[in-house]
């Protein structure tokens, strides 16, 4: 089942990566992603969180102080404080003064501190003045009272930036802290002391097992067996305390008594442990709970097997291991998010599915259906290249160089694709504003309408960067409508450009190497492609936000002139996308190819001008024919013919787009193929192109030779203009894509979703989806190593460095590890569910 779920998630991951990649023609790698948290704060600041429960009984409003110690156990500084809540819980953030040393968590009582009595039948006389309607003079079991004294500690070796550390404060952590302090403090000695006490208590993890209020049935119902037993063990301590003058248990005395001899020699009195065992059983009996954890059995065995009346617990390297806790939390997060996300996936119109689809649709609409954007670009282009001079109106082949710009696009030549519309200019303070109205423009065979207002630099300005401000623009294409409220086009040239309204040749000579487009846009989707066929979008999306594109213009290396070829160096989208169903999501999308500038200078491939098509295509020809006695064939990229002769009694067979025409005018039968051509005249193709454009090669033109179709032959096309190919398998794009948006699932914190993709060549790549919530995160990353495969493996990691690898094809799970150390093994049970077995003996199935 888990495989199914993960595979589903991988499918989504793949889709997301494709979403990112499709905007940039393949996307790229290079931009490193350190898995950092979305919206994270200063990476240099300590972000460690320490939290847990303070429980003897439940300590409420207790003072919690985190103190950094030196190796001798002396206090260095207070690095955090907190107050326990009504469940005894506390959370504190280590402040910036923390230097990385041992940390002691101290819980003490203040004037408002109360503790829940967990001693059967009571905790002595009530002297604190708290209202007690049940039995005003007695601190009964389950009632809060103010303890006369309370000082409990717990100790931690250190804390790392970004860690979330669970550390309970109980009588047993106090014992361990005392034991640790009996020798020079090191991280290892502290871990050892905590582990020793954990082993003494039958293997319960004293730092990370969360004790609960054992007097509260509701708390017990929601706790696991280990939490309950730990609570019972903590309660057992008070039973051993001597009564103070108020007949209340003297907790400090009890803690000191338990800790003193153990701290000195590491041995624990077996009778004292037997008493703890008996008292624990007594408390459990009082609340109607039996031990199902096996902990009490283990303690009992230790008591029975004790030699010489004392027990010398040996540290178990796996008990109390912080890495186990990190791994456990990782799986908890994974389970929580996995369940939620997979439910979302299985329920269309849920948040995750909907928002991902919205983002995907928006990216498709903006980056692929770019006719409207092209129309705006053409408008800017025509103004910059033609309108700035204002005089290039084609008025009966007479170019007028005066300050009376054309007012109708039909006056222009059609190089820029405009065939209707008007353009006007107004000048103010030296700069000019151009307005294009009611224009129609042909872009790559698609028609768009355009209204555009732009500001151009002042006449005679000498500029290295020419900035054209777009005041407004509205472009309508078949697929979408783009409205620009504000924007700019910035052209960069290595040589300053003299703006000359009256002689365009000044800037025609300039070499524009980089174009930056920055737009605030609203894009409304109109049609979508379904199986390649445009259809009206039933649920069109609207996008409002920015569209920033940086592109690099290709400079012809031969003549040094700028060309129309360019590749995007970066694309950035940031805004909100919504549909007419009320779904919406804010997102940021980035595509970056840092090497793009270099790529346009040195494309991967540029065929030599003058080479033949045969040279460049393994000897094949664009236009060629063969002639034999019974068969004649001809083909060029736009048409083909095939004639063959079989029998005198029937017509010559013809296979061509024009068969009907040929048969109609030249009925047979004929005695031979040559007899047929004698009747119809020498073969002549209907379409006989003079020039043919071949993608990724260039524009081929035919020579002046006259073809002789009476025998086999070909037309030698030669390359007249080479098209640069910027990327191929020998020179792949290196860059990355990124997509970020926020999600809000019911019952879960707002979550940042960060999707990244990177490629190092056409066959390999890496995609990642990072979910960030609070100071935690889960990162899913998939790698593609071979052509023809989507993703080979799938890594799941988190901020603690826990790693789980999933083989995508076989659905195999790796062990769970941290820094290469195996913390848990993962296996699939016969029922298909996953079992995770930790090195400390605990396990989980989900």
């Amino acid at each position, binding site marked *: *089942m*888990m495989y199914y779920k993960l595979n589903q998630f991988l499918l989504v991951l793949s889709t997301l990566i494709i979403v990112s990649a499709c905007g940039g023609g393949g996307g790229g790698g290079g931009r490193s992603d350190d898995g950092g948290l979305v919206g994270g704060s200063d990476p240099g600041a300590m972000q460690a969180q320490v939290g847990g429960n303070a429980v003897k009984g439940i300590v409420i409003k207790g003072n919690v102080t985190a103190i950094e110690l030196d190796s001798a156990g002396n206090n260095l500084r207070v690095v955090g404080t907190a107050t326990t809540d009504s469940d005894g819980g506390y959370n504190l953030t280590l402040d910036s003064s923390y230097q990385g040393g041992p940390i002691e968590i101290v819980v003490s009582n203040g004037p408002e501190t109360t503790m829940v009595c967990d001693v059967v039948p009571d905790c002595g006389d009530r002297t604190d003045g708290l209202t007690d309607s049940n039995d005003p003079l007695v601190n009964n079991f389950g009632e809060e009272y103010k303890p006369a004294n309370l000082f409990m500690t717990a100790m931690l070796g250190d804390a790392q930036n970004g860690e979330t550390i669970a550390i309970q404060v109980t009588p047993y952590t106090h014992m361990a802290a005392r034991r640790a302090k009996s020798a020079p403090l090191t991280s290892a000695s502290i871990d050892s002391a905590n582990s020793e006490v954990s082993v003494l208590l039958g*293997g319960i993890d004293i730092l990370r097992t969360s004790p609960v209020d054992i007097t509260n049935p509701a708390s017990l119902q929601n706790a*696991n*067996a*280990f939490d309950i037993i730990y609570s019972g063990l903590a309660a057992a301590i008070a039973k051993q305390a001597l009564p103070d003058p108020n007949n209340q248990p003297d907790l400090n005395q009890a803690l000191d008594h338990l800790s003193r001899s153990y701290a000195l020699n590491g041995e624990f009195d077996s009778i004292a442990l037997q008493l703890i065992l008996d008292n624990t059983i007594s408390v459990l009996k009082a609340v109607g709970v039996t031990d*199902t*954890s*096996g902990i009490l*059995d*283990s303690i009992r*065995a230790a008591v029975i*097997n004790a030699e010489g009346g004392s027990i010398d617990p040996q540290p178990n390297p796996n008990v109390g291991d912080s890495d186990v806790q990190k791994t456990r939390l990782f799986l908890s997060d994974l*389970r929580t998010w996995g*369940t939620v996300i997979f439910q979302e996936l299985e329920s269309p119109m849920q948040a995750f599915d909907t928002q991902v689809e919205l983002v995907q649709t928006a990216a498709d609409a903006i980056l692929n259906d770019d006719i409207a954007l092209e129309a705006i670009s053409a408008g800017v282009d025509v103004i910059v290249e033609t309108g700035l001079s204002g005089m290039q109106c084609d008025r009966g082949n007479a170019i007028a160089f005066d300050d009376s710009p054309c007012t109708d696009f039909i006056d222009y030549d059609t190089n820029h694709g405009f065939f209707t519309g008007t353009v006007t200019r107004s000048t103010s303070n030296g700069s000019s504003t151009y307005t294009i109205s009611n224009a129609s423009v042909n872009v790559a065979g698609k028609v768009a309408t355009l209204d555009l207002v732009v500001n151009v630099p002042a006449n005679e300005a000498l500029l290295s960067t020419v900035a054209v401000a777009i005041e407004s623009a509205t472009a309508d294409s078949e697929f979408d409508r783009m409205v620009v409220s504000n924007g700019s086009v910035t052209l960069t040239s290595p040589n300053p450009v003299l703006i000359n309204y009256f002689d365009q040749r000044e800037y025609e000579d300039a070499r524009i190497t980089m174009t930056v487009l920055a737009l605030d846009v609203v894009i409304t989707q109109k049609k979508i492609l379904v199986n390649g066929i445009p259809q009206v979008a039933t649920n069109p999306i609207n996008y409002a936000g920015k569209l920033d594109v940086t592109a690099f213009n290709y400079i012809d290396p031969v003549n040094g002139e700028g060309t129309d070829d360019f590749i995007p160096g970066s694309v950035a989208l940031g805004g909100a996308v919504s549909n007419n169903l009320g779904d919406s999501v804010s997102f940021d999308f980035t595509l970056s190819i840092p090497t793009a500038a270099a790529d346009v200078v040195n494309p991967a491939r540029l065929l030599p001008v003058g080479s033949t098509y045969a040279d460049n295509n393994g000897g094949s020809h664009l236009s060629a024919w063969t002639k034999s006695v019974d068969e004649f064939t001809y083909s060029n990229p736009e048409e083909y013919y095939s004639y063959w002769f079989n029998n005198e009694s029937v017509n010559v067979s013809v296979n061509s787009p024009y068969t009907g025409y040929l048969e109609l005018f030249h009925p047979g039968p004929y005695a031979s193929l040559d007899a047929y051509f004698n009747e119809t005249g020498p073969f002549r193709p209907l379409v006989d192109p003079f020039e043919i454009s071949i993608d990724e090669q260039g524009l081929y033109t035919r020579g002046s030779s006259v073809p002789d179709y009476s025998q086999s032959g070909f037309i030698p096309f030669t390359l007249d203009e080479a098209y640069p190919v910027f990327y191929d398998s020998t020179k792949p794009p290196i860059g990355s894509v990124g997509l970020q948006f926020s999600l809000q699932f019911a019952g879960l914190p707002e979550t940042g979703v960060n999707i990244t993709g990177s490629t190092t060549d056409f066959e390999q790549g890496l995609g990642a989806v990072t979910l960030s919530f609070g100071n935690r995160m889960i990162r899913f990353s998939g790698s593609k190593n071979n052509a023809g495969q989507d993703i080979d493996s799938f890594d799941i990691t988190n901020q603690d460095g826990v790693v789980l690898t999933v083989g995508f094809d076989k659905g195999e799970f790796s062990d769970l590890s941290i820094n290469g150390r195996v913390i848990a093994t993962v*296996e699939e*049970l*016969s*029922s298909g*569910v996953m*079992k995770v*077995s930790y090195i400390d*003996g*605990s*396990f*989980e*199935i*989900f």
Partner: protein
Amino acid sequence: MVALRFSNYFYQLHRKGRIIRPFLCGLLLVTAGPASADKNQRLGFEIHSFSYSEATSIHSIGGHWEDDVSSGDKALTVDRLYLGLLHGPFSIQYVQRYDAYYDYANDTARLLYQTENKLPLKQGDQYDLYISEDESASKGFRFGYSDWLRDDFKLSVYFSLLELTDLEQGELKGSASVVDSNDYDFSFYSDVVYEEDPLYERGKENVYGRGYSFDLAMHYLVNQNWDLGLQVLDLFSKMKVDDAPFTTAEASSGTKRFDEDGYVVFDPVVTGFEGYKSYSFEYNTQTHVVVGYRLKNSDSITLQHHDYYNLDFQEINYIQRFDEMELAWNLIPELNAIGFSIRTPSLKFILNTDNLDYDEMKYLQLSFQYYLTLG
């Protein structure tokens, strides 16, 4: 899913086949025969198997769950194999034994039957989930003394030294509530010591345990017509287990799916702890009392009382004598079972059951004894 889990407990019993396997082994040994000869010596082979399931058939509770569930909350099987030499009043025998006692909430069996067969559940119904299991297998040697101390009183005592070969002891507790006719929620905790984890597929590990058991039997001839017998098995016993694998765990419904029939399937969420612990246990004591009355025609009637820890019942026998052979007709009213016994000086065979169709049997007692006098 949960149904499958519970079933595993019972399936272990069925799968291990301890009723049949020892029988075959013993038979092979007996037929091989001894080479030496001594009239005072006998080679003995005994197999005793007793199985009972209260709520549903043995076959069903063994994991098939094909038969409806009636009232009842227990199941057990007790099996013994003895093979050895009897010399005068003394004996030494190789022993293999398998003991399994199950107590369960009838709710649990009903829920298993319904969910295993994908029967519609009643919305709002609550089910107690409870299974207590006490299963062990061991082998060793049994030393005995059996003799007529007086003309009318025979005493038999047996002392066994045993080594544990298999173990599965623990319990499962929880509850389930029906959400819809095809859907229910559950939660339970389990605490099981085992050789091979029946629930969570922990790898098989050897258990190491040793101990002893003491059996006692007496036969008193009151007069010419009346006689009394008493047999107490495992009167005293103790088995000490070292570092036995155990698992404590809590499980809940977790994530649900629905199969092609629309019936709920669970991906349960389980958390627990796997460790080792040393402890000791005692075998459940069996008590059998027999009162016999000899009729004028030399036939006899006996009344027996059997107590198998969580099951006790009475048995009536009518015994006919033919020269050296006795033929007994057995009736067990409480269990709706009948059977017969054949006894000769060297052989004894007992078969009691409530149904001749194995798939529908709830009660089966099979006993075979064969003594070969040497020389």
